[in-house]
């Protein structure tokens, strides 16, 4: 029940090719991450929709294989 940071990044980038993704392994257990995702796709849409795009990119792993992913999303300045 754990995921590699590189795997998370690859999934997010496959859905959002322009995304700048920063991932931090919070507990060092491969199960609690914090991710910052910056993508042009987030421009002008609500935070809920931004997060839903990232969750969709993770193809159902969020809440399953991935227990905790603190998410911060934004559009580039």
């Amino acid at each position: 029940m754990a995921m590699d940071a590189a795997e998370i990044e690859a999934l997010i980038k496959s859905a959002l090719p322009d995304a700048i993704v920063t991932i931090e392994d919070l507990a060092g257990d491969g199960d609690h991450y914090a991710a910052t995702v910056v993508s042009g796709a987030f421009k002008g849409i609500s935070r809920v929709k931004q997060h839903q795009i990232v969750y969709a990119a993770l193809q159902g792993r969020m809440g399953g294989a991935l227990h905790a992913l603190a998410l911060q999303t934004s559009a580039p300045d």
Partner: protein
Amino acid sequence: MTDIAHDRIKAEITENAVVLYMKGTPVFPQCGFSARVVQILTHVGVPFKGVNVLADAEIRDGIKNFSNWPTIPQLYVKGEFVGGCDIISEMFQAGELQSLLAESGVEVKAGA
């Protein structure tokens, strides 16, 4: 999701201005993310209804489909899904949660 779960959630978020679907209860949260949102709502001074999804498997699955959101907690204001722990924390820090509650006509305790 069963129609029953959908109808129950719909009724709950319509009848109550602020509803938090969470793990555990507001007094005894059983997950750090749920505890954090309870703490924020308490700090803001807004009355809310806590629904313990751990006590109800139908709602626990149903709520994730209802909002197309994979995790608990989930906060609803006036029937609208507002966000999970990260979004509520961000909104609180930016003062946006307080504005949203004020705009939605939800009364908060003065001086909070």
